[in-house]
C-alpha cells in the first residue's frame, strides 16, 4: 500500500489507483473497492461503474486536462493527478485549474512520481493529499510543507499575492 500523507500527517489510504492498462473485468473480480480509475476507463465503462458497489474516483494523466471531465467533475469525491515523472510540471496547472476555473471542492491527490522536494509547490497549487513514491520517507516529506514561510504569487493556497499583503 503506497504511503499517503496530507499536509500534516500520514493518513490511511482507502483508495486504490487503477493502472491505465486495466480492463473492465476487474470490477467483477474485485468487488467493494474504492478505485481511482483512469480517465479513459471512466469514459468507456460508465455503465459498469454505475453498477459497481465501491466508491469511484478518477485520475488524469499529465497530458489530459480537467476540461475533459468538466461536466461531471462535481459529482466526484476525489480527482487524482498523475506525475509520470517528477519533472513533468503539467499537473500543477491541472490542479490549479480544477480549483480556480472549475471550483472543484473535492480532494485533489498527487499520484505517481511524487517526491519530497516538489511537495511544497504541489500544496500551493491546490493538492490536498500526496501518495508518495515507495522510497520516500514520510517524516521527511511532511517537513516539505514548511520549506517556505510565504511566497510572492497568487496561488490556490494563498490567493492574495504578496504585493497586496506587504
Amino acid at each position, binding site marked *: 500500500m503506497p504511503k499517503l500523507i496530507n499536509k500534516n500527517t500520514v493518513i490511511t489510504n482507502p483508495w486504490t489507483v487503477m493502472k491505465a492498462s486495466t480492463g473492465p473485468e476487474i470490477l467483477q473480480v474485485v468487488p467493494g473497492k474504492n478505485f481511482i480509475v483512469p480517465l479513459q476507463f471512466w469514459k468507456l465503462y460508465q455503465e459498469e461503474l454505475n453498477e459497481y458497489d465501491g466508491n469511484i474516483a478518477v485520475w488524469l494523466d499529465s497530458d489530459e486536462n480537467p476540461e475533459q471531465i468538466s461536466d461531471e467533475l462535481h459529482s466526484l469525491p476525489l480527482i487524482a493527478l498523475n506525475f509520470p515523472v517528477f519533472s513533468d*510540471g*503539467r499537473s500543477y496547472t*491541472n490542479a490549479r485549474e480544477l480549483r480556480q476555473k472549475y471550483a472543484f471542492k473535492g480532494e485533489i491527490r498527487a499520484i505517481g512520481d511524487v517526491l519530497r*522536494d516538489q511537495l*511544497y509547490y504541489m500544496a500551493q497549487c491546490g493538492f490536498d493529499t500526496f501518495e508518495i513514491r515507495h522510497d520516500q520517507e514520510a517524516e521527511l516529506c511532511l517537513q516539505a510543507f514548511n520549506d*517556505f514561510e510565504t511566497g510572492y504569487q*497568487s496561488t490556490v493556497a494563498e490567493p492574495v*499575492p504578496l*504585493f497586496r499583503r506587504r
Partner: protein
Amino acid sequence: MYRYDGYDHQMLADRVAQFRDQTNRYIDGKLSEIEFLPLRLQNGLYVQRLAPMLRIAVPYGMLSSTQLRKLAYIANHYDKGYAHFTTRQNIQYNWPALVDVPDLLADLAEVEMHAIQTSGNCIRNTTTDQFAGAAPDELEDSRAYCEIIRQWSSFHPEFAYLPRKFKIAVCGTVDDQAATQVHDIGIYIVKGDNDEIGFRILVGGGLGRTPVIGKEIFDFVEKKHLLTALEAILRVYNREGRRDNKYKARIKILVKETGVEEFKNKVTKEWALIKDSSLTLTDEEIDRCQKFFDAPNYQELSNTPTQLTDKLQSNILFAAWHSQNVKPHKVTGYSIVTVCFKETGVAPGDVTDRQLEQIADLSDEYSFGEIRISHKQNIVMADVRQDQLFELWKALESGAMASNNLGLLTDLICCPGGDFCALANAKSIPIAEAIQRKFDDHEELTNIGEMNLNISGCMNACGHHHVGNIGILGVDKKGEEYYQVSLGGSSKNNASLGKIIGPSFAQEEIPDVVETIVGVYKEKRIGEEKFIDTYNRIGIDPFKEKVYAKAD
C-alpha cells in the same frame, strides 16, 4: 536599486536552508543524481567539464558596490580569483566545489543575492537595457517592471517544471540593447492612446538550434494587466509546450506549430479568467517598485564642461575612449560610461577579484555606488559627471580597464566554448583572441565602425552567433573543429537572423575570412553606412564571392 524587506529576506533564507538540506541529502545518497539535477539547476549549479559552474542571478543586471565587493570575495575565496559576466547580465563562477555552494549562497544572501532560477526549466532572470533609467530616449524606466516580474517569477509554484527554460526581457528605450526579440517573451514599453504607457508583448523568440524572432501577440497591455498576461502565456505553455523532445520544447516551437493567431486565442481565453483577479497589479505596487529606482541625487551641472573639453583636446587616448565608450545621459552634465571588458587575450566577460573591487570603489566615487552588466558582457557606470570623466578614465586605465573598443569589432560576444564547456563542438575563446589580434589597430577599428561579432562553440548559441552582424559557430567536421560563418544578424530593433555564407572554415582561416568580409564592406559602403546597413543593401553574394575566391 531594489532593497529587500523582511519578506524577501525570509524567502531567500528559506531557499538557502532548503538547498543546504537538498545538497546534504544528495551527498548522503538519499537523493539520486537525476532527482538532484533540477534542484541544483534551479539554484544555478551546472556540472561542467572541469568543475561545477555556479551562475549567480543579477536581476536586470544591476549591482551595488557592496554586492560587487561580495562577488570579489567569492571569486577569491571559493574560486580561482575571477568571475565571468554572462550574456544574460548574470555572473558565473567556474570553480566552486559542490560542498561549498550552500555556504557561498549564504554569503550571497547577506547582500540580497542568490542563484535562484538561473538555470533549469523555469523562468530565468529577467533582463533589460543596461541604460535603463539613464538613457535619453527612454519612455519609462523598465527596472520597476523587471522587479515586479522578478518577484512574480521567483518560486512560482506552478511554473517550476516547465517544458524548457524561459527567458523574459523588458525594453523601455527606443534603441533596443536588450536583444528583446530573441527572448521567449519580449516586452516593449510603449505609448498607447492618450499617451498611456503600457506594454507590447512578443512571444516565441529564442536562439539555440532553432533561432526565431519573437512575434507580437499583444500590441498594448495596460500596466495593471502585466502579470495576468504573463501568467496566461505561461499557463498555455506549461500545458501545451512539447515535452517529448528537448530540442522542440521551447515556447518558440509551440508558437510555430500552433500558429500565432491560435496561440493568441488560447492565451486570451486563459487571460480572461484571471484578468481582473487579485493578481491584477495595483497602482500602489507599481509606485512602490518605482520608488526604488528614483533618480539618484543629481547635481545641477552643465554639458561639456571645460574640465572635459580641455582634456579631450590634450589627451588623444582619453578622447578615443570618450568617443567610443561614453554615451549621452538624460540629465544635463552627466554621461553613461561603459567599461569594456574585451581586452585582447582575456576571455570576453572574464573579470578578476581585484577588478571587481576596483569597479566597486570607482562606482562609489563616480556613479552613486551602482553599476549594470550589459548583455554584451561589459559593465556600465550609468551616472557619471562629465567633469569627472577624465579622472574616472585615468583610474580605469591604471586598472587595465580602459579598453576603448565598445561597439567595435573587437567588442565581441563569445561563449566559454571547448575550453570549459562539455557540449562544445569547438573552442571559441582562441577564435576571439585571434580576431582581436588581427584587428589591433584602433584607427582601423573605428574606421570599420559599429559591428557585432558573436561566437558560439556549438549550436546552443550561448554566444548569440545568429544575431551577430558576423556570426561564428563552432561545428564538428569528422572530429575536427570547424567554423561556420554567417552574416547579417542583429538583435536590435530590426532584429534579424544571420545567413550562412557557405562551407565552414578551419580555425586558422577565420581571422582572414573576417578581414575579407570587412574589406568588402569598406569597399561597398556608402558614406556613413554601418556594416549591417551595407549588408542589407547589397546582400550576401558580394561577400561570398570574395571570401571563397580567396580560399581557392
